[in-house]
């Protein structure tokens, strides 16, 4: 295994901040581009500039407080989401020799981050003291448990070939063969969890139109800007971690490792955004049934297959 050097704390913070900021902005741009293409409109420079303009609009809006909110919870929910997205990036090697914290239990930490996203979303729904937001918060608890279980099995599966829970070791174990080929079910299920945890596409039953925005129904101004940024940043984290766990991370010919990581992460972001626009929102009861009776057994299979291959 290649020894991994830790990045200095300052450079790690700078890289994580840049990746989240650029990745989050890219998600907003890709969302608009996908909308234009599906709607049959022509792409224009507005696709690139509107996320910035909309951010300026939200910054200039008043942040309205509801009557008798759980104020600390309202304030920390977006902060938790953003912090979790950043924490996820800290444990991923961005290139050979550059990782914020090369933890021997990296995939366990990532699993914990996914579980804590449930807390952030529930807080966001509970805090404002509003019926639709609260229904959204409880909905996410109902569906979030299945995301956690699915993720646990596929993360264990990804770590089996490396015989290590360290993300750097998992990347290193893919030098000759990527996990996406070794474990064909792993990446699709990981992307499913990514869409679910960031409440997009068929899994958008949380901040959805049937609840007038769901957990975000009462969000305005800076609060909503931070919440949207958190969702976009979390999607970016999923794309980066997904490329490390299943697409061989920095491994690739000719180009530097960091460029391969960038290309693979952007590719996964494009796939995630396209998938979120291709599928309509599934009703919660049906979604939970599909997750427990379809995706969860599939994640068992993925783990069994990974175990057999590792043997």
């Amino acid at each position, binding site marked *: 295994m290649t020894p991994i050097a830790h990045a200095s704390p300052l450079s790690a913070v700078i890289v994580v901040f840049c990746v989240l900021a650029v990745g989050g902005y890219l998600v907003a741009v890709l969302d608009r581009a*996908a909308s234009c293409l599906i709607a049959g*409109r022509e792409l224009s420079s507005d696709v690139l500039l509107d996320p910035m303009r909309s951010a300026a*609009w939200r910054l200039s*809006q008043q942040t309205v407080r509801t009557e008798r909110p759980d104020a600390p919870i309202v304030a920390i929910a977006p902060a938790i989401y953003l912090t979790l997205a950043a924490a996820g990036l800290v444990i991923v090697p961005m290139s050979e020799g550059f990782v914020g914290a090369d933890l021997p239990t990296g995939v366990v930490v990532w699993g914990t981050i996914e579980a804590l996203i449930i807390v952030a979303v529930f807080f966001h729904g509970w805090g404002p003291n509003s*019926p639709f937001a609260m229904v959204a918060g409880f909905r996410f608890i109902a569906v979030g448990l299945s995301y956690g279980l699915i993720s646990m099995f596929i993360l264990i599966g990804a770590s089996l070939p490396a015989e290590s829970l360290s993300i750097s070791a998992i990347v290193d174990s893919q030098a000759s063969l990527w996990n996406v080929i070794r474990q064909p079910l792993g990446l699709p299920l990981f992307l499913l969890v990514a869409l679910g945890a960031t409440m997009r596409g068929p899994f958008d039953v949380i901040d959805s139109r049937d609840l007038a925005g769901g957990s975000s*129904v*009462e969000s305005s101004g800076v609060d909503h800007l931070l919440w949207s940024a958190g969702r976009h940043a979390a999607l970016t984290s999923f794309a980066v971690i997904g490329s490390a766990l299943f697409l061989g991370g920095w491994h690739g010919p000719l180009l530097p490792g960091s460029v391969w990581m960038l290309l693979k992460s952007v590719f996964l972001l494009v796939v995630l955004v396209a998938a979120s626009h291709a599928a*309509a929102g599934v009703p919660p009861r*049906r979604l939970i049934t599909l997750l427990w009776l379809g995706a969860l057994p599939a994640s068992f299979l993925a783990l069994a297959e990974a175990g057999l291959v590792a043997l």
Partner: protein
Amino acid sequence: MAMRRLLALARRAPTPVFIVTGVGGFEDAAELRWNERIHACDTPRRASVLVVAGQIRPEDRQAVARVHDQMPHPRTTVWHQPQVRPAGEEPNQLHSLVSDAYGAVLADPSTSKPDVLPDQPPAPWRGRGDHGQGGEGMMGGVPYGRPMAMTADDRDGLALDALRFTVGPFAPMLPSGLVLAVSVQGDVIQQARVERPPFSRRHDSSLAVLHDDERNPADHARDLSRLCLRFLAPILDLIGFGPQAERAFLTSKAPDDALLLRIEQLAKVLRLSPGLPLATRRVGVIPSGCLDALGLSQESDELFDLEHRLMSLLAKARMLADDAASSTAPVSRDVRDVFPEALDSLALESVLPEILVGKEWREAVMTLAALPLDLLQPQGSRVRP
């Protein structure tokens, strides 16, 4: 200085609006909703411009004021009374008015409109019960006029908090005008009562042009086809297919000679959406007893669900455009020959609670979307057999 630059940048963003649709305002609301430089918000909390399109009932005025007061500053309002346009005439430029109003209020935030209603609870504190809120223990009661959750038996024989609230008349997920009083346990509707029916679209300009006797049968068929697409767009939007919904609306505005081709392209886009059957099949199924009460005819083995509604609208749009293109347009000029499912408002009010009770909130919303409420007849009128 920095704030001025921020506001200047914000002015160039798509205009964030919350649209309140009244009688006769559906067409203009749709034009606004799908304009590319307009951002139609799901909640007034994120809108800067309140647009009231059409006439509202006197009893809905307070609801409009409440929606207005929920909007953050800086904010402004545009009242718009649509007029029936001669067939073929382009709709007015409401989006320009709205964008100008948005630009003006951002240019001078001090012109932001103040609250309409006083900042006080809807009712006084009751001062009854264990904690004074009128319930039992720390639950229940109606403190300050706002019902609190109270434990009640649920459908599984367990006890779960029941929450009562009223939604509408301008909730974005419900048909405009509909006011529902509901009691939910978790996500499931336990009780529902229609307090006010949805608005009829009979006087909407998109329907009015269909009664223009001067039009030839091919144009008439094309108008009906366009109408189907306009009914289709909000359903797609509700299931999370915003861009596909926009495409449906833009297709309805396609030139005559390109209409059929664009409909085919729309059908292809929808076919390429793998989650569509998952999101709509057997969702929002209307019980057969309720179908009879509503006067809806049921085909032998067809389910009256969201998928049926979507696909039948798309099929009708395609058939009518095809008829128009091949000069075999139907001679009928009556919209109800093409849409025989027009509902009676009175029947709807009596049947709606039965349809909604026991459904999860999202499925209840989808069920309402599956009903052909676009063709709602005013109270008391009967649907032609």
